[in-house]
C-alpha cells in the first residue's frame, strides 16, 4: 500500500505539498498502474505523454509557488482520468461510439479546462456505454469494461456498472486518483456502487455541460468519481462553477465543499422514502440500508419516514424524457461534418448507412423510442405526460425536503452482475437505475458511498440526496456514512499492489 497510486487524492495532494514526492513520480506510478490494468479495458485512449507533461509543468509551478510565485491549484499535480464524453482539445473523443471515429475536438470542455486550471493532469479517456446510454459499460464500441472486483470464489468477469464504467473501474483499480463521470439517470452513482467507490452527481447546473457530448440535456450532469468522500469534495470544487456558455449553468458561488466534511450530522433529519423499499429487494440490500440508518442515528441524526408517492413513475418518465432529448441531440451525427461517413448513392442512403453503421443497438433503440414519443399523435400521450410526471416527482422531493435535510436510499438494486447478463433484456437493464433516476429527474445532488459488501463479496453503495445546491449537507452525511462504514475492502484486481 505504499505505492503512490494507492494514495487518496487528499493524501497525494498533501504529499506533494510536503515534497515527499513529485507530480512526475505520482503520475509515473499511475501510468504504470494504468498499463498493468489494461485487461480491464477501462481506457479508450491513454495519454501518458500528456499526463507527464502536465506533471512536469505542475512540479515547476510548485517550485515557483514555494518561492512565492503564486498559489498551487486545488488539484495541483494530481493525475486523473476523464470519461470519454468530455471533449478534450487535440485528444480523440469518442463517446465510445463508432460514429465519432477520428473525432478530435479543437476545444476543451469547461469542466476539464477547470480541472487543468486547478493543476490536474490527464492520464487518458475512459470507456463508457455508447453515448452514455447504458448501465454496464457493455454498449461501448470499444468493448466492455471489466469490473476489478470478482465474486468470492468465482472468476466470472463482472460489469463495472455504467455508463461511467471506465472511470469507476480505473479509480477502483487505483489506475487514477479520481475520474470525471457524467450522470444522466445514475451513470456516476450506479458504477460507483458497483466498483466500491464514491460517486457524486451534483445539482443540475452546478457543472457546465459545455463541451460534454450531450445525451439528455435536461438531465446530464458531470461529477467526480473518487475513492473517498473528501476526494470527491476536492474534485467537485475544481470542476464546478458558472459558465456563460451553458445557459443552464447556475450562476452561484462554489462553496468550499471540503470544509463542510467534518461538520457532522448531529441534528440532521434524514428522510427514509418508503417507496424505495421495493418488492423483491434482496435482504442483504435491506440490511445494508438499515445499517446506514443505524450509523447515521448513532452519529446524531434523526431518521424520518417520508413519502415520495410518484417514485414508481420515475423510471418510465426517465425512459421517455431521456430518449426524446437523445433522439434530437444525436441528430447531428449525420456523416456530413465529422466522424464516420458511410457513402451512399443518395443523401438519404448516406444518412442511413452512416447512422446504421455508426450507432450500436442500444443507441438505435433509444433514438427510435425518442423519435416515437415526440411524434405527432404520441407527443401528448408520452412526452407531455412524462413532463407532467417529472414536475410531480420534483414536487414530491420538495415536499419531503420541507421535513428533512437529506434522504438515504440504496444506490442500486443489486451488486455488479456478470458481463453478458441482462444484455438481451433492456427492461432488466433499465431497472438498475430505479433508485438513481428520481433525483436525476428532479435535478438534485446525490452521492453514492461504498457501505458494505454483498454476500458474495461485491461492493454495495448507499445513496444520499439533498436539496438543490445543498451539496454541503450531502457531503456531511456522506462523510458520516463513510466514516461509520469504514469500507476498506479492496478489489480483486488492483494495480500496483502485486495482485
Amino acid at each position, binding site marked *: 500500500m505504499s505505492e503512490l497510486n494507492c494514495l487518496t487524492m487528499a493524501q497525494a495532494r498533501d504529499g506533494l505539498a510536503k515534497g515527499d514526492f513529485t507530480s512526475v513520480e505520482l503520475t509515473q506510478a499511475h501510468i504504470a498502474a494504468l498499463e498493468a490494468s489494461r485487461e480491464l479495458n477501462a481506457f479508450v485512449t491513454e495519454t501518458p505523454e500528456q499526463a507527464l507533461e502536465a506533471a512536469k509543468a505542475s512540479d515547476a509551478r510548485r517550485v515557483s509557488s514555494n518561492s512565492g510565485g503564486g498559489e498551487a491549484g486545488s488539484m495541483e499535480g494530481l493525475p486523473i482520468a476523464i470519461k470519454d464524453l*468530455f*471533449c478534450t482539445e487535440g485528444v480523440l*473523443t469518442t*463517446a465510445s461510439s463508432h460514429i*465519432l471515429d477520428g*473525432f478530435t*475536438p*479543437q*476545444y476543451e*470542455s469547461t469542466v476539464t479546462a477547470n480541472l487543468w486550471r486547478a493543476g490536474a493532469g490527464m492520464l487518458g479517456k475512459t470507456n463508457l456505454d455508447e453515448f452514455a446510454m447504458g448501465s454496464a459499460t457493455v454498449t461501448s464500441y470499444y468493448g466492455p469494461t471489466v469490473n476489478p472486483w470478482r465474486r468470492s470464489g468465482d472468476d466470472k468477469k463482472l460489469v463495472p456498472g455504467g455508463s461511467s464504467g471506465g472511470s469507476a473501474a480505473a479509480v477502483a483499480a487505483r489506475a487514477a486518483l479520481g475520474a470525471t463521470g457524467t450522470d444522466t439517470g445514475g451513470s456516476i452513482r450506479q458504477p460507483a456502487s458497483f466498483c466500491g467507490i464514491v460517486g457524486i452527481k451534483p445539482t443540475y447546473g452546478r457543472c457546465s*455541460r*459545455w*463541451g*460534454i*457530448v*450531450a445525451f*439528455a*440535456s*435536461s438531465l446530464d450532469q458531470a461529477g467526480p468519481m473518487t475513492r473517498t468522500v473528501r476526494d470527491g469534495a476536492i474534485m467537485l470544487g475544481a470542476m464546478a462553477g458558472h459558465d*456563460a*456558455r*451553458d*445557459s*443552464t449553468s447556475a450562476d452561484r458561488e462554489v462553496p468550499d465543499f471540503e470544509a463542510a466534511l467534518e461538520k457532522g450530522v448531529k441534528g440532521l433529519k434524514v428522510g427514509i422514502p418508503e417507496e424505495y423499499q421495493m418488492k423483491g429487494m434482496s435482504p442483504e440490500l435491506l440490511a445494508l440500508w438499515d445499517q446506514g440508518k443505524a450509523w447515521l442515528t448513532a452519529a446524531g441524526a434523526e431518521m424520518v419516514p417520508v413519502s415520495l408517492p410518484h417514485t414508481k413513475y420515475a423510471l418510465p418518465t426517465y425512459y421517455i424524457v431521456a430518449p*426524446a*432529448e437523445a*433522439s*434530437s441531440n*444525436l*441528430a*447531428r451525427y*449525420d456523416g*456530413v*461534418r*465529422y466522424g464516420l461517413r458511410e457513402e451512399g448513392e443518395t*443523401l438519404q442512403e448516406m*444518412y442511413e448507412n452512416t447512422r446504421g453503421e455508426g450507432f450500436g443497438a442500444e443507441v438505435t433503440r433509444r433514438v427510435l423510442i425518442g*423519435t416515437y414519443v*415526440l*411524434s*405527432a399523435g404520441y*407527443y401528448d400521450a408520452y*412526452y407531455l405526460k412524462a413532463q407532467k410526471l417529472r414536475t410531480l416527482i420534483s414536487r414530491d422531493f420538495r415536499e419531503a425536503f420541507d421535513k428533512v435535510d437529506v434522504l438515504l436510499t440504496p444506490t442500486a438494486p443489486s451488486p455488479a452482475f456478470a458481463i453478458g447478463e441482462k444484455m438481451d433484456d433492456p427492461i432488466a437493464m433499465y431497472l438498475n437505475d430505479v433508485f438513481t433516476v428520481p433525483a436525476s429527474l428532479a435535478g438534485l445532488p446525490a452521492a453514492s458511498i461504498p457501505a458494505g459488501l454483498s454476500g458474495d463479496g461485491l461492493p454495495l453503495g448507499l445513496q444520499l440526496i439533498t436539496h438543490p445546491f445543498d451539496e454541503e449537507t450531502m457531503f456531511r452525511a456522506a462523510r458520516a456514512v463513510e466514516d461509520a462504514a469504514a469500507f476498506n475492502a479492496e478489489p480483486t484486481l488492483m494495480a500496483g499492489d502485486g495482485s
Partner: protein
Amino acid sequence: MTMLQGNTGDWEMVIGLEVHAQVISEAKLFSGAATAFGAEPNTQVSLVDAAMPGMLPVINRVAVEQAVRTGLGLKAEINLVSVFDRKNYFYPDLPQGYQISQFPKPIVGQGTLILDLAGGETREVGITRIHLEQDAGKSLHDQHPSNTFIDLNRSGVTLMEIVSEPDMRTPEEAGAYLRKLRSILRYLGTCDGNMEQGSLRCDANVSVRRAGDELGTRCEIKNVNSIRFVQQAIDYEARRQIELIEEGGTVDQETRLFDSGNGTTRSMRSKEEAHDYRYFPDPDLLPLEISQGFVEEIRASLPELPDAKKERFVSDYGLGTEDAGLLTAERATADFYEEVAKGRDSKLACNWVTGELFGVLNKSGLGIGDSPVSAAALGGLIDLIADGTLSGRLAKDVFEAMAETGKEASVVVEEKGLKQVSDSGAIEAEVDQVLQAYADKVAEYKGGKDKLFGFFVGQVMKATGGKANPGVVNEVLKKKLGG
C-alpha cells in the same frame, strides 16, 4: 374589384403571408459568429453553428431586442415569457439536425398592420405572431457533378418569422402588405428588407371560396423572392384552385413552389409527405424571460413609424394622404422631404420631391440615399422660385442641370445665366420689339381677337430665352396693348 371571375361565378381569394425577416445583428441568434452578407463560404461559422459535439446555444440579447422592437412596431403584444423549441429534421445544411425556433410560445403575439392601398385607401391586416428562429446554411448544388457543397455562414443567423392572419383578398393587398411590412422593418432598423439577398423571404398561403363561405383548403407557396413574384404566384395559384374546383376536383393541402420562369406553381410535397417536426422545448435553453422594463425601454426608443408620420404629414404639411403615403414609405424619403420643406412651401416641396426628384431617381434607378440632388440643394432651388429669381419653367431646367452635375441651384443659374429677368425696362424693350414685329396681329387683337394675348406672351418669353418673369411680361403687355 376583389372577386375573381370563374366559369360558375365569383370567387374570393383568401391570402395569409409568412415572412422570414433576417434580423439586423452583428452576431447570430445563439452564437457569436458574424453575419455579414457575401462573405467567403464557411468563414462565419462558430463551433455552435457547425453543431460540434457538446456545443450549446446561448441567446443573443440583441436578437431579442430586435424581435421586441418589431413587435412594438406592429402594435403587438409582447410575451414576457417565451420558449424555444426544437424543430427536428435532417438536411445537410442544418448541422444540428434541428432548427431552434419557437412554436407554442412565441415572443410576440397578436398585432396589426395597416395597408396603404391605391387612392389613399387603408385596410387593417392582423398579425398572428412573430417568433425567433435560426436560419439554416446553404446547399450549393452546382459546384461539383455529384456532390453538394455546404456553406454554413448563414447557419444560425437570426430570423423573425412574421405570420399574418388570412386577411388579404387580392394579390395587390399582399403586395401592399409586404411593402408596408418592409417599410416598418426598415424604419425600426430590425431588417434591411432586401429580398434579392434573401434577408426578407415570403411564403404565401392561398385559398379560394365563394363569398360568405367557410375558408377553403389552402396551399402554401414557398420562398418567393420578390413582391412582384408573390403577387404573380398568388394570382396563378388562386386561378388554379378555382379551375380545379369548378372542374369538380378538390384542392389538396400541400406545399408548392413558385417557378418564376413561367409564373406557375407546382407541388413540392403533399400533406401526407409533410415532415413530422417533433417539436419539443429545447432543453439547452431556459424559457426566455424578459421584464416589462426591458420592453418599455425599447418602446421609448422607437422612432416615429410610417403611419404616424403619414398622419403628421397630412396634418402639419397639409398634404393629401396619397402624397403623404408616398413620402413616408421610406424613412430616408420622409427625412429628405422634411429637410426640403423646412421653412418653405410644404406643398411646393412635396411637388418637387414626388415629381421631379422621384422622376430622376426612377430613371436612374437610384435610391433616395444616392440622390444626385441633396435635400439642401433642392431647398435652395425652391428658394430661388420663391424669391422670383426663377420661374417654374426655368427651375425645371435648373433642376435637370443640378441632377446632371450635382451643383447648387445658384451655381447653375450663375453659370448658365438662367436668372429670370424681372426688370420692367428690359422687358418693355423686348415687348416693343415683339409688338413691332407682329403689327398685323396687334391689329387683329385690337379688333377683338383676345386670344392672341397668349401668343404675345409666348413670343416675349421665346425672345428672352424663357428668362423673363412671366408676371412682369403680362403686366407690360397689358399696358402696351391696352394703351
